[in-house]
């Protein structure tokens, strides 16, 4: 398994896309911070990159990578290696090299320009989002055999989580504005890893505003550590479940 992960990682690093991704993140983060003396504004721009670009790139790159290495996967399946080990290793190799890119590309500038809690939480959110969307990509590519369809599914997934979902929540909140929606709105965000990471950062960035709400549920969620534990737990579930589903599917799949 170690050997496989190592092989996947070396293969990806030779690929240059990840290198380009790292350099892109690094350039954007550096420029965002050096444009303004006020590092909180830089963090805000970075938040948008983390919530939009990181999931998009993770999901597309991983899908394409898995399709491109289908022959390699078929070859390995014929060897005495368990399918679970095989897919787990590919996931681990992919996720860890993309996480490395995020840590260097975003973590380094944050450490250099802004060593606040907000910055560190942002890096944590980016790392977790990478793990979630790599898993979703693998699930998408295991389910569909056709490459174009697989990439389509992956992009749709991203589009749904990044943009459509929030629109749906807003729509729901408007429709049911007369009812108490605190619990429901927190519950709904648990269905979206991008929303969860956004709120994780908000807990640090906008705590003054979030403390302004009267509801007891919000208060408990935003004060203290309840919100943190909730978000981290649900994010872990989001990281584990797609890859577990993919493994289950892959084990039965007729290659």
């Amino acid at each position, binding site marked *: 398994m170690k050997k496989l992960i190592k092989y996947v990682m070396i293969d990806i690093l030779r690929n240059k896309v990840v290198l380009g991704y790292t350099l892109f993140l690094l350039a954007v983060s550096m420029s965002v911070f050096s444009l303004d003396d006020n590092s*909180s504004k830089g963090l805000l721009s970075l938040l948008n990159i983390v919530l939009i670009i990181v999931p998009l790139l993770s999901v597309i790159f991983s899908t394409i990578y898995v399709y491109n290495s289908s022959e390699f996967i078929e070859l390995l399946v014929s060897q005495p290696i368990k399918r679970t080990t095989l897919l787990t290793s590919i996931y681990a190799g992919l996720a860890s090299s993309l996480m490395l890119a995020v840590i260097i590309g975003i973590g380094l500038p944050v450490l250099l320009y802004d060593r606040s809690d907000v910055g560190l939480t942002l890096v944590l959110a980016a790392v977790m989002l990478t793990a979630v969307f790599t898993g979703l990509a693998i699930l998408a590519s295991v389910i569909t055999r056709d490459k174009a369809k697989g990439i389509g599914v992956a992009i749709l997934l991203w589009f749904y989580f990044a943009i459509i979902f*929030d629109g749906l929540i807003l729509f729901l909140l408007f429709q049911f504005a007369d009812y108490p929606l605190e619990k429901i709105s927190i519950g709904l965000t648990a269905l979206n890893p991008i929303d969860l990471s956004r709120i994780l950062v908000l807990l640090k*960035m*906008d705590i003054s505003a979030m403390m302004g709400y009267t509801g007891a549920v919000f208060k408990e969620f935003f004060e203290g550590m309840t919100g943190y534990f909730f978000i981290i737990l649900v994010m872990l579930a989001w990281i584990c479940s797609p890859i577990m589903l993919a493994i289950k599917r892959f084990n039965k799949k007729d290659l």
Partner: protein
Amino acid sequence: MKVFLAITLLLMQLFATASVIEVGAGKQYKSIKSAIAAAKDGDIILINKGVYAEGEIVIDKAVSVRGVGYPVIDGKSKSQVIRVEASGVVLEGLEVCNAGYSSSYDWAAIKILNSKNVIVRNNRLLNNSAGVYLQNTSYSEISNNTMQGNSTDEVESGNAIHCWKSNNLRILNNSLTRHRDGLYFEFVTASLIQNNTSFKNLRYGIHFMFSNDDTYIHNTFRTNGSGVAVMFSKNVVMRYNTFEENWGSAAYGILLKEIQGGAVEGNTFLRNTVGIYMEGTSRILLSNNTFKSNGWAMRVQASCEANTITKNNYFGNTFDVGTNGTMQLNIFNENYWDKYEGYDLNKDGIGDIHYQPVSLYSMIVEKMPSASILLRSFMVSIMDKAERLMPSITPVELKDDKPLMKPLSL
């Protein structure tokens, strides 16, 4: 003038027949009450170190009471501790503790009634329901005191300094904590509040009601129930104060309710849920303030009019300005907004297009608090951008026509 004053004071010293009365174990008087009974106007009562629990001590002569090494005057949580009913009394160097709470009387550690020229300085008032209570008192000074209360709920507690129907007070350099309000002013006029620190009080750092022409400068208000409330008053001047971390659903740095005239200048608002909340406020000048990392820098209700908001810095606030209506009768001018995205072609330091500090999303949250869960979502920023291009919900008139390109150095 100063020389004349000094000479007069010196002469007064020479001709005065003040005697010093000592109180304490092994001294002429064992109890404070007996010392006061024996004293005459102008005497100095020196209280030596020790514990004095004598029930309510009434000072009805113009004496100067001084503690040596902070003698403890204990109210045993049963009564008021010291009641001053004479002008010209000086209380200094005392530790007054355990004033009781009563629902029918306003008990306090030190109560001053119907007097003038009273000075309360360098005292420690600990574990009292209320600290200093002034009623119908004028030209008095409360300075350098430490007041730490024992309040746990708003109903059964008193204020650190409570002033009622007084004028020309000077409240300087006090540390006020764990009472209901740090300072309570009702019908108090022409007074100065300076260099005080008011923190961890249950309700307000300062509470003004019907108090006109007062000034508070260089004070710090931190983690109170909610900052400072100025209500139903005229011409209150607020300068160079710091408001920090007043968090909660009804918490703000300053609440301005039914205020006419006055100025809010050079203050710093840091990490409050709402920096300034204005309701029914008119003709106020807000300038040279810094708003940093607040939930809302300002909430200007539609009932405010003719206020001028100019030359302020807004950094990293979640929302710059919130409002509840489309009516807009205030002037926003030459402020620095860190969210401003305009340009400055003629390089005069003033942006060429106006800035609208109220975003669509802040209007949505105003109506529907549970939508706050979508804060900083991509969806929301798209909607905000669209609204900026074609305003339909946000008040069009609420705008800064001359936004600054660079922050002011304040």
